């Protein structure tokens, strides 16, 4: 193998599994260290930099970081990254003075943001400090989009939403609530906007057209029903409720039903466990509330008796799962009817753009989604940008935030007549963490503590009102223990080949057999010849230059390194060092600064 090029920011970024997995690349280990130091406000601000909504995401993020967490590979459970984000939010002081401020002078550019959800709000957050005139159009009477309408209050209190959305609106965004856009053509022609951003989400719940569907009022579309509950248009539901589908919306529907008077709620899954769309923790929380999850039941028919929904008919399915874990289409082996008063359909949602004319230069694909460039977020019509669920179909909040940041950069470039693809690359800083002979600037000792569990409101208490937040947040003691579980993967093991005397000290002391000095070879061959075979192909090998004494190479399998620093402590020549890599992510303001520097240079 060729020596690893660690100067490319991606190499060390990838070692920080959580940050790499996060669409917005939140600097997780850094904020966890700030929390460990009791610097909650700093941790909050660091979070806000990349993910804009730490309080919201600390509760309801889909947490792509946690399955990626290295801790989950060396022991059973990953670090409770999301919970710690909430800690930063819960324990922070008033940070309003530290928030970005709107530019003192407007730059004369007018931007329309359609939809007041997380994607649009992120664009506003990035563009207002640069002097843009930002108007947000929202068809409902409240901001937040799906965060407010589809996430129940017992998971995400409105107070948190209002606060974090307020930080952005207070910079001077013009907000047009209850203002539905019915024609994009009209807006393009007579709105007077320099650019338009569409952040309208994926607002249409999927239908289930089975016999009986249209003969009763007691079959509800999940996201519409949740919205009607959020705005208090719906205040009750029948005693027996069936939820069709087993994604995260289904989890919100079943738990909301329990709070509106249902006492027998079943979530009906077509497939067996392991093939559910819902996140594990959302399933756990629903099951804790005694929701029954019924597997292998495929919906067949709504049973209507005398004009009233009385039950639902299902095929009982059997599946074959092959050696690769793939499941077949299944065969029906039986049929059952389950009684119910209401059915909620939560089988997915899709994009819907009835308000975008099809002859204004915006191309749509076969699924009726706009064709959007993944780098620039611009569609096929110049000056129109998409982000969040409206761009590539339903994802989650953190993806919408990531889209928003990229769209803001593009909008800035578009408004200044620059090439949208000439974007600042990621940068990286490396700095040694050595403080003294056996002293590092971070807590390097491995703490074997297990993951802390989130305390919940008592099972009886929580159903009394719809808006009692179930999760209480970590206590100070829990926080103290959980922060120590983080392996500080951003404190990198950096190797300098020409200093190595091949004494083997690092190899002998490594607790997880990461290191090997051996003859070089191709990757497949090397992976088999290491101290422990490197079987996780998603994790890179860090290969040195030829070593001075024997010409062999030092190979590190990044997979299981616990960043304990012992290799660097035992190295007599300082060939190993622990250096913190800081990923530098360019935002719209960095592009604006570059413009300013270019102009200054040009005189």
């Amino acid at each position, binding site marked *: 193998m060729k020596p690893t090029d660690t100067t490319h920011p991606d190499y060390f970024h990838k070692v920080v599994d959580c940050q790499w997995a996060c669409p917005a690349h939140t600097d997780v280990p850094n904020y966890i260290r700030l929390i460990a130091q009791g610097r909650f406000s700093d941790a909050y601000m660091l979070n806000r930099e990349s993910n804009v909504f730490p309080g919201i995401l600390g509760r309801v993020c889909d947490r792509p970081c946690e399955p990626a967490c290295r801790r989950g590979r060396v022991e059973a459970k990953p670090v409770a990254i999301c919970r710690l984000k909430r800690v930063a939010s819960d324990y922070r002081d008033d940070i309003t003075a530290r928030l970005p401020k709107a530019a003192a002078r407007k730059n004369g550019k007018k931007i329309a943001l359609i939809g007041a959800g997380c994607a649009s709000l992120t664009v506003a957050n990035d563009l207002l400090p640069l002097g843009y005139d930002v108007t947000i159009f929202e068809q409902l009477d409240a901001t937040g989009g799906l965060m407010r309408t589809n996430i129940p209050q017992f998971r995400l209190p409105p107070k948190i939403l209002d606060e974090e959305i307020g930080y952005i609106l207070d910079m001077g965004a013009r907000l047009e609530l209850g203002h539905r856009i019915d024609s994009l053509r009209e807006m393009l022609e007579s709105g007077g906007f320099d650019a338009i951003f569409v952040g309208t989400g994926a607002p249409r719940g999927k239908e289930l057209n089975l016999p009986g569907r249209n003969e009763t009022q007691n079959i509800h579309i999940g996201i519409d029903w949740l919205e009607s509950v959020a705005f208090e248009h719906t205040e009750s539901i029948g005693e027996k409720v069936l939820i069709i589908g087993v994604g995260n919306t289904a989890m919100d529907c079943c738990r909301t039903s329990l709070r509106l008077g249902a006492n027998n709620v079943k979530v009906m899954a077509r497939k067996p466990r392991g093939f559910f769309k819902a996140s594990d923790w959302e399933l756990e929380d629903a099951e804790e509330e005694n929701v029954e999850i019924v597997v292998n039941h495929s919906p067949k028919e709504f049973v209507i008796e005398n004009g009233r929904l009385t039950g639902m008919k299902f095929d009982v399915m059997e599946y074959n799962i092959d050696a690769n874990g793939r499941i077949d289409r299944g065969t029906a082996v039986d049929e059952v009817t389950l009684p119910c008063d209401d059915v909620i359909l939560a089988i997915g949602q899709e994009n819907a753009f009835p308000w975008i004319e099809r002859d204004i230069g915006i191309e749509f694909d076969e699924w009726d989604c706009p064709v959007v460039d993944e780098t620039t977020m611009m569609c096929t019509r110049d000056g129109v940008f998409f982000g969040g669920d409206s761009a590539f179909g339903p994802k989650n909040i953190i993806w919408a935030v990531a889209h928003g940041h990229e769209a803001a950069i593009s909008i800035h470039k578009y408004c200044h007549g620059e090439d949208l693809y000439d974007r600042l690359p990621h940068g990286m800083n490396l700095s040694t963490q050595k403080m003294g002979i*056996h002293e590092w600037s971070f807590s390097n000792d491995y703490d*074997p503590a297990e993951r802390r569990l989130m305390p919940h409101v008592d099972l009886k208490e929580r159903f009394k009102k719809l808006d009692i937040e179930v999760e209480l947040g970590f206590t100070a003691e829990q926080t103290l223990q959980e922060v120590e579980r983080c392996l500080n993967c951003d404190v990198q093991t950096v190797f300098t080949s020409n200093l190595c005397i091949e004494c083997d000290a690092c190899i*002998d002391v490594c607790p997880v*057999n990461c290191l090997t000095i051996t003859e070089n070879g191709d990757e497949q061959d090397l992976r088999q010849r290491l101290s422990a075979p490197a079987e996780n192909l998603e994790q890179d090998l860090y290969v040195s230059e030829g070593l001075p004494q024997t010409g062999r190479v030092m190979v590190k399998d990044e997979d299981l390194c616990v960043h304990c620093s012992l290799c660097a402590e035992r190295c007599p020549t300082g060939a190993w060092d622990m250096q913190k890599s800081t990923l530098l992510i360019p935002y719209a303001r960095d592009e604006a600064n570059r413009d300013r520097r270019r102009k200054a240079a040009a005189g």
Partner: protein
Amino acid sequence: MSYIAKPKVTHPKLKKNELGLTVRDYEGTVSTLCAGCGHDSITAAIIQAVFELGMEPHKLAKMSGIGCSSKTPAYFVSQSHGFNSVHGRMASVTTGANAANRDLTYIGVSGDGDSLSIGMGQFAHVIRRNLNMCYIIENNGVYGLTKGQYSASADVGSKAKKGPANRQMPIDPISTAIGLGATYIARSFSGDKQQLVPLIKGALTHRGFALLDVISPCVTFNDHEGSTKSYAHTRKHFHHVIDADFIHPKEEIVAAYNEGEAMPVELHDGSKIVFRKLNEDYDPTSRSAAFAFLRDSENAGEIITGLLYIDEEMGDMHHLSGSVDEPLSKIPYETLNPGAATLSKLMDRYR
């Protein structure tokens, strides 16, 4: 030394030996030697060898004297027996321990100072008795613990960090041991575990005195230019004359060897050592040939490594003294000490 202990966390796919233990179960406390010390690599090789042999920790006794080397038994197999004796007296203490309990496996770790200066007499006599033990000399050519004076194994012309070059002849433990009649003699290098681990396994299994002279660079006082026991010098002059694979009784010899170049020697417990000659002139079963070869190569400045001599036939101390098979420590006191009357009767036979 390191401030934190080696974390208990392990690679999830760590291999287990026949006892169900992993290599981590054979570790000791964290080393307090200088970072990069060759001794720590030897410690790691011992841990690997003992793990691969599937030894029960409580059947191992770790013996040492004084010096950097003699600290190392603390760093491997925490659950075994151990005795940290007076300077240079490890050989006698081990002789006593082995006399009392022949069932344990004895591993003595010593240094060039502990064995070739203050302990030279002990070293000679333990060889003479062919005591059943593995005797490792962690040889770095300096007195590291007293800040780098030349030891008895320092080569002529070798330079210390400061002061004049060494002018006195070194004592070579290998030729000394060949001369004194040791029955398993090997030399290796701390920086070559591939060679070292099988040699330790062979030495622990061999019945009789097994000497392992391991060049173990002192990073602090003897790893500079001009030193003949540095990592760089050893790597440059390292001459591997004979390869020895250790094969457990339960394993089959899987590697294919050409006739003439491979030579299996069976050990008392049924395990085998398979020699592979890397140098055609070398014969590890001939004491005189080995001696001559060593002399010539050493005059040429080469460091000859590998399993240099083996004699599996000669009996160990218990065999020579005709002692009973059962360890004396397990024989009831009344049987072991039949009393004054029996003693006088015995003495009468010599009057």
